[in-house]
Protein backbone atom coordinates (compact mmCIF):
# COMPACT_ATOMS: atom_id res chain seq x y z
CA UNK A 1 0.00 0.00 0.00
CA UNK A 2 2.87 2.31 0.91
CA UNK A 3 4.56 1.72 -2.43
CA UNK A 4 1.33 2.62 -4.29
CA UNK A 5 1.00 5.87 -2.27
CA UNK A 6 4.62 6.74 -2.98
CA UNK A 7 4.10 6.12 -6.67
CA UNK A 8 1.13 8.48 -6.65
CA UNK A 9 3.20 11.17 -4.89
CA UNK A 10 6.05 10.62 -7.33
CA UNK A 11 3.64 10.97 -10.21
CA UNK A 12 2.55 14.39 -8.93
CA UNK A 13 5.72 15.85 -7.40
CA UNK A 14 9.12 15.77 -9.07
CA UNK A 15 11.60 13.33 -7.55
CA UNK A 16 13.58 14.73 -4.61
CA UNK A 17 11.52 17.91 -4.35
CA UNK A 18 8.78 16.77 -1.94
CA UNK A 19 10.60 18.09 1.12
CA UNK A 20 11.38 21.42 -0.56
CA UNK A 21 7.74 21.89 -1.58
CA UNK A 22 6.41 20.91 1.86
CA UNK A 23 8.85 23.20 3.59
CA UNK A 24 8.04 26.11 1.32
CA UNK A 25 4.32 25.66 1.96
CA UNK A 26 4.99 25.54 5.73
CA UNK A 27 7.09 28.70 5.40
CA UNK A 28 4.30 30.49 3.57
CA UNK A 29 1.72 29.35 6.13
CA UNK A 30 3.86 30.48 9.09
CA UNK A 31 4.58 33.89 7.53
CA UNK A 32 0.89 34.36 6.77
CA UNK A 33 -0.07 33.19 10.28
CA UNK A 34 2.26 35.76 11.85
CA UNK A 35 0.82 38.39 9.51
CA UNK A 36 -2.77 37.50 10.52
CA UNK A 37 -1.84 37.59 14.22
CA UNK A 38 -0.33 41.04 13.74
CA UNK A 39 -3.50 42.18 12.00
CA UNK A 40 -5.45 41.09 15.07
CA UNK A 41 -3.27 43.29 17.25
CA UNK A 42 -0.35 41.07 18.23
CA UNK A 43 2.87 43.09 18.33
CA UNK A 44 6.24 41.57 17.53
CA UNK A 45 9.45 43.06 18.84
CA UNK A 46 12.68 42.57 16.97
CA UNK A 47 16.14 43.21 18.28
CA UNK A 48 17.44 46.48 16.77
CA UNK A 49 20.35 45.98 14.39
CA UNK A 50 23.28 48.35 14.53
CA UNK A 51 23.33 48.78 10.76
CA UNK A 52 19.61 49.63 10.64
CA UNK A 53 20.09 52.29 13.30
CA UNK A 54 23.05 53.63 11.35
CA UNK A 55 20.86 54.04 8.27
CA UNK A 56 18.75 56.58 10.19
CA UNK A 57 21.86 58.10 11.76
CA UNK A 58 23.51 58.43 8.36
CA UNK A 59 20.54 60.31 6.90
CA UNK A 60 20.71 62.71 9.88
CA UNK A 61 24.46 63.10 9.42
CA UNK A 62 23.99 64.00 5.76
CA UNK A 63 21.39 66.62 6.75
CA UNK A 64 23.74 68.13 9.34
CA UNK A 65 26.66 68.27 6.92
CA UNK A 66 24.55 69.53 4.03
CA UNK A 67 25.93 66.80 1.80
CA UNK A 68 24.07 64.17 -0.25
CA UNK A 69 23.69 60.43 0.26
CA UNK A 70 24.94 57.86 -2.24
CA UNK A 71 23.21 54.52 -2.59
CA UNK A 72 24.79 51.60 -4.46
CA UNK A 73 22.52 48.60 -5.19
CA UNK A 74 25.29 46.42 -6.60
CA UNK A 75 26.16 44.87 -9.92
CA UNK A 76 23.15 42.71 -10.59
CA UNK A 77 19.85 43.37 -12.30
CA UNK A 78 16.25 43.18 -11.14
CA UNK A 79 16.26 39.39 -11.48
CA UNK A 80 18.45 39.16 -8.36
CA UNK A 81 16.70 38.89 -4.99
CA UNK A 82 19.57 40.83 -3.42
CA UNK A 83 19.04 43.75 -5.80
CA UNK A 84 15.32 43.71 -4.99
CA UNK A 85 16.18 43.75 -1.27
CA UNK A 86 18.59 46.62 -1.94
CA UNK A 87 15.88 48.58 -3.72
CA UNK A 88 13.42 48.11 -0.84
CA UNK A 89 16.03 49.66 1.48
CA UNK A 90 16.74 52.37 -1.11
CA UNK A 91 13.05 53.36 -1.12
CA UNK A 92 13.04 53.80 2.64
CA UNK A 93 16.39 55.64 2.83
CA UNK A 94 15.40 57.90 -0.07
CA UNK A 95 12.10 58.78 1.59
CA UNK A 96 13.65 59.46 5.01
CA UNK A 97 16.24 61.70 3.32
CA UNK A 98 13.74 63.49 1.07
CA UNK A 99 11.51 64.30 4.04
CA UNK A 100 14.31 66.37 5.61
CA UNK A 101 15.57 67.82 2.35
CA UNK A 102 18.57 65.56 1.73
CA UNK A 103 19.29 64.40 -1.80
CA UNK A 104 19.92 60.71 -2.41
CA UNK A 105 21.84 59.67 -5.51
CA UNK A 106 22.05 56.13 -6.79
CA UNK A 107 24.66 54.62 -9.08
CA UNK A 108 23.79 51.33 -10.72
CA UNK A 109 25.18 49.03 -13.38
CA UNK A 110 21.88 47.59 -14.61
CA UNK A 111 19.84 49.45 -17.17
CA UNK A 112 16.69 47.79 -15.82
CA UNK A 113 17.62 49.04 -12.35
CA UNK A 114 17.91 52.58 -13.76
CA UNK A 115 14.28 52.50 -14.90
CA UNK A 116 13.05 50.97 -11.62
CA UNK A 117 14.97 53.42 -9.44
CA UNK A 118 13.74 56.42 -11.41
CA UNK A 119 10.20 55.19 -10.67
CA UNK A 120 11.03 54.75 -6.97
CA UNK A 121 12.50 58.26 -6.66
CA UNK A 122 9.56 59.81 -8.51
CA UNK A 123 7.13 57.98 -6.22
CA UNK A 124 9.08 59.06 -3.11
CA UNK A 125 8.83 62.75 -4.04
CA UNK A 126 5.15 62.32 -4.89
CA UNK A 127 4.53 60.60 -1.52
CA UNK A 128 6.14 63.40 0.50
CA UNK A 129 4.14 65.98 -1.46
CA UNK A 130 7.02 67.50 -3.42
CA UNK A 131 6.67 66.05 -6.93
CA UNK A 132 8.23 69.17 -8.42
CA UNK A 133 11.60 68.20 -6.91
CA UNK A 134 11.83 65.07 -9.06
CA UNK A 135 13.92 65.48 -12.19
CA UNK A 136 14.69 62.50 -14.43
CA UNK A 137 18.40 61.80 -14.50
CA UNK A 138 19.23 63.93 -11.48
CA UNK A 139 19.22 61.18 -8.87
CA UNK A 140 19.93 57.90 -10.67
CA UNK A 141 23.28 57.57 -12.44
CA UNK A 142 24.54 54.93 -14.84
CA UNK A 143 28.21 54.87 -15.85
CA UNK A 144 28.36 51.46 -17.49
CA UNK A 145 27.09 47.90 -17.24
CA UNK A 146 30.48 46.33 -16.59
CA UNK A 147 31.35 45.49 -12.98
CA UNK A 148 34.46 47.65 -12.77
CA UNK A 149 33.20 50.41 -15.04
CA UNK A 150 30.32 50.79 -12.61
CA UNK A 151 32.69 50.69 -9.63
CA UNK A 152 35.03 53.32 -11.07
CA UNK A 153 31.99 55.42 -12.03
CA UNK A 154 30.74 55.20 -8.46
CA UNK A 155 34.20 56.12 -7.15
CA UNK A 156 34.36 59.12 -9.48
CA UNK A 157 30.90 60.16 -8.37
CA UNK A 158 31.99 59.94 -4.72
CA UNK A 159 35.07 62.10 -5.36
CA UNK A 160 33.00 64.74 -7.17
CA UNK A 161 29.95 64.71 -4.92
CA UNK A 162 31.59 63.95 -1.55
CA UNK A 163 28.56 62.26 0.00
CA UNK A 164 28.23 62.25 3.78
CA UNK A 165 26.71 58.79 3.81
CA UNK A 166 27.23 55.85 1.46
CA UNK A 167 25.02 52.74 1.54
CA UNK A 168 26.03 49.65 -0.42
CA UNK A 169 23.22 47.12 -0.30
CA UNK A 170 22.69 44.40 -2.92
CA UNK A 171 24.86 41.97 -4.85
CA UNK A 172 28.56 42.86 -4.83
CA UNK A 173 31.83 41.19 -5.65
CA UNK A 174 35.33 42.67 -5.57
CA UNK A 175 34.01 45.97 -6.98
CA UNK A 176 32.88 46.85 -3.46
CA UNK A 177 36.43 47.76 -2.49
CA UNK A 178 36.73 50.44 -5.18
CA UNK A 179 33.69 52.42 -4.06
CA UNK A 180 34.23 51.57 -0.39
CA UNK A 181 37.81 52.77 -0.22
CA UNK A 182 36.99 55.94 -2.14
CA UNK A 183 34.12 56.67 0.23
CA UNK A 184 36.49 56.22 3.17
CA UNK A 185 38.83 58.80 1.68
CA UNK A 186 36.11 61.47 1.51
CA UNK A 187 35.13 60.67 5.10
CA UNK A 188 31.73 59.21 4.34
CA UNK A 189 29.91 57.08 6.88
CA UNK A 190 29.27 53.68 5.30
CA UNK A 191 26.74 50.92 5.74
CA UNK A 192 27.07 47.78 3.67
CA UNK A 193 24.82 44.82 3.11
CA UNK A 194 25.09 41.73 0.95
CA UNK A 195 24.30 38.03 1.04
CA UNK A 196 27.28 37.23 -1.17
CA UNK A 197 30.12 35.50 0.62
CA UNK A 198 32.93 36.94 -1.49
CA UNK A 199 31.74 40.54 -1.25
CA UNK A 200 31.02 40.50 2.47
CA UNK A 201 34.61 40.39 3.83
CA UNK A 202 35.58 43.33 1.60
CA UNK A 203 32.55 45.21 2.87
CA UNK A 204 33.66 44.40 6.40
CA UNK A 205 36.90 46.23 5.73
CA UNK A 206 35.35 49.38 4.27
CA UNK A 207 32.04 49.80 6.04
CA UNK A 208 31.23 51.09 9.50
CA UNK A 209 28.38 48.66 9.88
CA UNK A 210 27.09 45.61 8.03
CA UNK A 211 23.86 43.92 7.11
CA UNK A 212 24.92 40.28 6.86
CA UNK A 213 23.10 37.80 4.67
CA UNK A 214 19.37 37.64 5.37
CA UNK A 215 19.47 40.97 7.25
CA UNK A 216 19.34 42.77 3.92
CA UNK A 217 15.98 41.11 3.21
CA UNK A 218 14.63 42.17 6.61
CA UNK A 219 16.12 45.67 6.55
CA UNK A 220 13.27 47.61 4.98
CA UNK A 221 10.71 46.04 7.36
CA UNK A 222 12.94 46.96 10.29
CA UNK A 223 13.48 50.53 9.11
CA UNK A 224 9.79 51.30 8.71
CA UNK A 225 8.83 49.45 11.89
CA UNK A 226 5.62 48.48 10.10
CA UNK A 227 3.82 46.00 12.36
CA UNK A 228 2.59 43.75 9.56
CA UNK A 229 5.94 43.63 7.77
CA UNK A 230 7.70 42.97 11.08
CA UNK A 231 5.28 40.10 11.74
CA UNK A 232 6.57 38.25 8.66
CA UNK A 233 10.04 38.43 10.22
CA UNK A 234 8.63 36.60 13.24
CA UNK A 235 7.30 33.96 10.83
CA UNK A 236 10.79 33.76 9.34
CA UNK A 237 12.25 33.13 12.80
CA UNK A 238 9.78 30.27 13.36
CA UNK A 239 10.97 28.72 10.11
CA UNK A 240 14.58 29.07 11.21
CA UNK A 241 13.75 27.48 14.57
CA UNK A 242 12.15 24.51 12.81
CA UNK A 243 15.17 24.15 10.54
CA UNK A 244 17.54 24.32 13.47
CA UNK A 245 15.57 21.64 15.28
CA UNK A 246 15.61 19.51 12.14
CA UNK A 247 19.38 19.93 11.84
CA UNK A 248 19.98 18.93 15.47
CA UNK A 249 17.67 15.91 15.18
CA UNK A 250 19.25 15.05 11.84
CA UNK A 251 22.80 15.17 13.22
CA UNK A 252 21.83 13.11 16.29
CA UNK A 253 19.98 10.60 14.13
CA UNK A 254 22.94 10.36 11.77
CA UNK A 255 25.26 9.81 14.74
CA UNK A 256 22.91 7.06 15.93
CA UNK A 257 23.10 5.41 12.52
CA UNK A 258 19.71 6.47 11.17
CA UNK A 259 19.38 8.10 7.75
CA UNK A 260 15.67 8.89 8.10
CA UNK A 261 16.05 12.69 8.17
CA UNK A 262 18.52 12.48 5.29
CA UNK A 263 16.03 10.43 3.24
CA UNK A 264 13.15 12.71 4.28
CA UNK A 265 14.98 15.64 2.74
CA UNK A 266 15.28 13.72 -0.51
CA UNK A 267 19.09 13.66 -0.36
Amino acid at each position, binding site marked *: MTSIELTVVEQI*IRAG*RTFQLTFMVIMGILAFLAYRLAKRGREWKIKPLEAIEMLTEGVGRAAEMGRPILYLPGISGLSSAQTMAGLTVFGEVCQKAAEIGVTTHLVTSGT*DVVAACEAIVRQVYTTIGKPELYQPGKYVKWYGADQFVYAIGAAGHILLDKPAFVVQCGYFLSDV*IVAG*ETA*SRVGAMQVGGTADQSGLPLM*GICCDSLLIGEEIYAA*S*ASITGDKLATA*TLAGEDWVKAILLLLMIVGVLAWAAGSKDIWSLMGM
Partner: protein
Amino acid sequence: MSATVTYIRTYLAQAVIIVGCLAMLIGYFLVSPEAGRVADELNIWNMNVGTFTLFVGIITIFMRYGRSIINRDPNWLFHLYCLVVIALWVPFGTLTGVYSDLYQTLYLNTKITLHITIIGEMIFFCVSAMYRTFRIKSFRTFVLAFLAALMIVFNAPWLTTPFPQVGDAAYWLLNNPQMAAARAMVICGGIGGIILGIRILLGLEKGALRITGG
Protein backbone atom coordinates in the same frame (compact mmCIF):
# COMPACT_ATOMS: atom_id res chain seq x y z
CA MET B 1 -3.34 59.78 -11.85
CA SER B 2 -6.46 58.21 -13.30
CA ALA B 3 -8.00 55.16 -11.67
CA THR B 4 -7.38 53.06 -14.79
CA VAL B 5 -3.66 53.80 -14.84
CA THR B 6 -3.43 53.15 -11.10
CA TYR B 7 -5.24 49.85 -11.61
CA ILE B 8 -2.88 48.80 -14.41
CA ARG B 9 0.28 49.85 -12.58
CA THR B 10 -0.64 48.32 -9.24
CA TYR B 11 -3.09 45.45 -9.47
CA LEU B 12 -2.30 44.21 -12.95
CA ALA B 13 1.43 44.17 -12.13
CA GLN B 14 0.72 42.22 -8.94
CA ALA B 15 -1.53 39.79 -10.83
CA VAL B 16 1.18 39.19 -13.44
CA ILE B 17 3.74 38.58 -10.66
CA ILE B 18 1.46 36.09 -8.89
CA VAL B 19 0.58 34.18 -12.07
CA GLY B 20 4.27 34.12 -13.07
CA CYS B 21 5.33 32.86 -9.61
CA LEU B 22 2.70 30.12 -9.60
CA ALA B 23 3.59 28.95 -13.09
CA MET B 24 7.31 28.78 -12.24
CA LEU B 25 6.66 26.99 -8.93
CA ILE B 26 4.29 24.46 -10.48
CA GLY B 27 6.77 23.83 -13.30
CA TYR B 28 9.60 23.31 -10.80
CA PHE B 29 7.81 21.15 -8.22
CA LEU B 30 5.07 19.23 -10.01
CA VAL B 31 5.25 16.66 -12.76
CA SER B 32 3.16 18.52 -15.26
CA PRO B 33 4.20 18.90 -18.90
CA GLU B 34 1.64 21.69 -19.29
CA ALA B 35 3.08 23.66 -16.35
CA GLY B 36 6.58 22.99 -17.68
CA ARG B 37 5.62 24.44 -21.05
CA VAL B 38 4.09 27.50 -19.34
CA ALA B 39 7.28 27.92 -17.28
CA ASP B 40 9.43 27.65 -20.43
CA GLU B 41 7.24 30.20 -22.17
CA LEU B 42 7.53 32.54 -19.18
CA ASN B 43 11.30 32.16 -19.27
CA ILE B 44 11.30 33.27 -22.90
CA TRP B 45 9.10 36.23 -21.96
CA ASN B 46 11.45 37.01 -19.11
CA MET B 47 14.33 37.19 -21.58
CA ASN B 48 12.24 39.35 -23.90
CA VAL B 49 11.37 41.74 -21.09
CA GLY B 50 15.03 41.79 -20.05
CA THR B 51 16.05 42.73 -23.59
CA PHE B 52 13.35 45.38 -23.67
CA THR B 53 14.62 46.91 -20.41
CA LEU B 54 18.00 47.23 -22.11
CA PHE B 55 16.32 49.47 -24.67
CA VAL B 56 14.59 51.37 -21.87
CA GLY B 57 17.99 51.89 -20.28
CA ILE B 58 19.57 53.07 -23.52
CA ILE B 59 16.67 55.45 -24.21
CA THR B 60 16.93 56.78 -20.63
CA ILE B 61 20.66 57.33 -21.04
CA PHE B 62 20.22 59.09 -24.38
CA MET B 63 17.51 61.37 -22.94
CA ARG B 64 19.54 62.16 -19.82
CA TYR B 65 22.91 62.64 -21.47
CA GLY B 66 21.30 64.52 -24.36
CA ARG B 67 19.82 66.99 -21.86
CA SER B 68 23.16 67.24 -20.09
CA ILE B 69 24.94 68.05 -23.39
CA ILE B 70 22.36 70.66 -24.37
CA ASN B 71 22.56 72.34 -20.94
CA ARG B 72 26.38 72.06 -20.86
CA ASP B 73 26.24 70.39 -17.44
CA PRO B 74 29.47 69.45 -15.65
CA ASN B 75 31.17 66.55 -17.45
CA TRP B 76 28.98 67.00 -20.54
CA LEU B 77 31.93 66.10 -22.75
CA PHE B 78 32.09 62.63 -21.20
CA HIS B 79 28.38 62.23 -21.82
CA LEU B 80 28.87 63.23 -25.44
CA TYR B 81 31.71 60.73 -25.77
CA CYS B 82 29.50 57.99 -24.27
CA LEU B 83 26.65 58.72 -26.69
CA VAL B 84 28.97 58.80 -29.70
CA VAL B 85 30.53 55.47 -28.71
CA ILE B 86 27.10 53.84 -28.22
CA ALA B 87 25.85 55.31 -31.50
CA LEU B 88 28.90 53.92 -33.34
CA TRP B 89 29.08 50.49 -31.73
CA VAL B 90 25.42 49.51 -32.08
CA PRO B 91 25.13 49.81 -35.90
CA PHE B 92 28.68 48.52 -36.33
CA GLY B 93 27.93 45.39 -34.31
CA THR B 94 24.58 44.92 -36.03
CA LEU B 95 26.08 45.19 -39.52
CA THR B 96 29.25 43.15 -39.10
CA GLY B 97 28.11 40.79 -36.35
CA VAL B 98 29.62 40.69 -32.89
CA TYR B 99 31.73 37.64 -33.71
CA SER B 100 33.32 39.12 -36.83
CA ASP B 101 37.11 39.49 -36.72
CA LEU B 102 36.92 43.26 -37.16
CA TYR B 103 34.45 43.69 -34.31
CA GLN B 104 36.38 41.36 -32.03
CA THR B 105 39.69 43.14 -32.78
CA LEU B 106 38.16 46.52 -32.00
CA TYR B 107 36.48 45.12 -28.90
CA LEU B 108 39.65 43.54 -27.58
CA ASN B 109 41.69 46.66 -28.29
CA THR B 110 39.33 49.07 -26.58
CA LYS B 111 37.04 47.58 -23.98
CA ILE B 112 39.35 44.85 -22.74
CA THR B 113 42.33 47.21 -22.60
CA LEU B 114 40.35 49.66 -20.50
CA HIS B 115 39.06 46.82 -18.35
CA ILE B 116 42.56 45.60 -17.59
CA THR B 117 43.61 49.14 -16.71
CA ILE B 118 40.74 49.37 -14.24
CA ILE B 119 41.63 46.01 -12.70
CA GLY B 120 45.23 47.23 -12.43
CA GLU B 121 43.98 50.17 -10.39
CA MET B 122 42.49 47.66 -7.95
CA ILE B 123 46.00 47.10 -6.56
CA PHE B 124 45.98 50.58 -5.03
CA PHE B 125 42.56 50.01 -3.49
CA CYS B 126 43.68 46.63 -2.15
CA VAL B 127 46.78 48.16 -0.55
CA SER B 128 44.66 50.88 1.02
CA ALA B 129 42.16 48.29 2.28
CA MET B 130 45.00 46.16 3.62
CA TYR B 131 46.30 49.11 5.61
CA ARG B 132 42.82 49.50 7.07
CA THR B 133 42.60 45.77 7.87
CA PHE B 134 45.89 45.72 9.73
CA ARG B 135 45.17 48.86 11.76
CA ILE B 136 44.37 47.06 15.00
CA LYS B 137 42.15 49.07 17.31
CA SER B 138 40.12 46.48 19.16
CA PHE B 139 40.00 42.74 19.83
CA ARG B 140 37.68 42.23 16.85
CA THR B 141 40.05 44.04 14.49
CA PHE B 142 42.93 42.01 15.96
CA VAL B 143 41.13 38.76 15.13
CA LEU B 144 40.37 40.03 11.62
CA ALA B 145 43.98 41.10 11.06
CA PHE B 146 45.38 37.85 12.44
CA LEU B 147 43.16 35.71 10.24
CA ALA B 148 43.87 37.90 7.21
CA ALA B 149 47.60 37.51 7.82
CA LEU B 150 47.16 33.75 8.13
CA MET B 151 45.33 33.57 4.81
CA ILE B 152 47.98 35.72 3.13
CA VAL B 153 50.70 33.38 4.34
CA PHE B 154 48.59 30.41 3.20
CA ASN B 155 48.48 31.84 -0.30
CA ALA B 156 52.27 32.33 -0.44
CA PRO B 157 53.96 28.96 -1.18
CA TRP B 158 57.39 30.23 -0.13
CA LEU B 159 55.96 30.75 3.37
CA THR B 160 53.90 27.56 3.62
CA THR B 161 56.95 25.42 2.83
CA PRO B 162 58.90 26.39 5.97
CA PHE B 163 55.66 26.72 8.02
CA PRO B 164 53.37 23.84 6.98
CA GLN B 165 51.27 24.34 10.15
CA VAL B 166 49.90 27.52 8.55
CA GLY B 167 48.38 25.44 5.77
CA ASP B 168 46.71 23.10 8.27
CA ALA B 169 45.35 26.04 10.26
CA ALA B 170 44.07 27.76 7.12
CA TYR B 171 42.38 24.57 5.88
CA TRP B 172 40.78 24.09 9.30
CA LEU B 173 39.49 27.67 9.22
CA LEU B 174 38.12 27.28 5.70
CA ASN B 175 36.54 23.86 6.28
CA ASN B 176 35.04 24.46 9.73
CA PRO B 177 34.13 27.97 10.95
CA GLN B 178 34.07 29.49 7.46
CA MET B 179 32.04 26.64 5.98
CA ALA B 180 29.55 26.70 8.87
CA ALA B 181 29.11 30.46 8.65
CA ALA B 182 28.79 30.34 4.86
CA ARG B 183 26.13 27.63 5.02
CA ALA B 184 24.21 29.52 7.71
CA MET B 185 24.30 32.59 5.46
CA VAL B 186 23.08 30.67 2.43
CA ILE B 187 20.25 28.91 4.31
CA CYS B 188 19.06 32.04 6.13
CA GLY B 189 19.50 34.10 2.95
CA GLY B 190 17.24 31.69 1.07
CA ILE B 191 14.57 31.87 3.77
CA GLY B 192 14.89 35.66 3.93
CA GLY B 193 14.50 35.90 0.16
CA ILE B 194 11.32 33.80 0.18
CA ILE B 195 9.84 35.82 3.06
CA LEU B 196 10.71 39.04 1.21
CA GLY B 197 8.84 37.63 -1.80
CA ILE B 198 5.82 36.89 0.41
CA ARG B 199 5.94 40.45 1.79
CA ILE B 200 6.06 41.85 -1.75
CA LEU B 201 3.11 39.67 -2.81
CA LEU B 202 1.16 40.76 0.29
CA GLY B 203 1.89 44.39 -0.61
CA LEU B 204 3.76 44.97 2.66
CA GLU B 205 7.06 45.89 1.08
CA LYS B 206 6.53 49.55 0.26
CA GLY B 207 10.08 50.22 -0.88
CA ALA B 208 10.15 48.03 -3.98
CA LEU B 209 6.46 48.35 -4.70
CA ARG B 210 6.84 52.08 -5.14
CA ILE B 211 7.64 50.98 -8.69
CA THR B 212 4.05 49.87 -9.12
CA GLY B 213 2.45 52.04 -6.47
CA GLY B 214 -0.11 54.51 -7.70
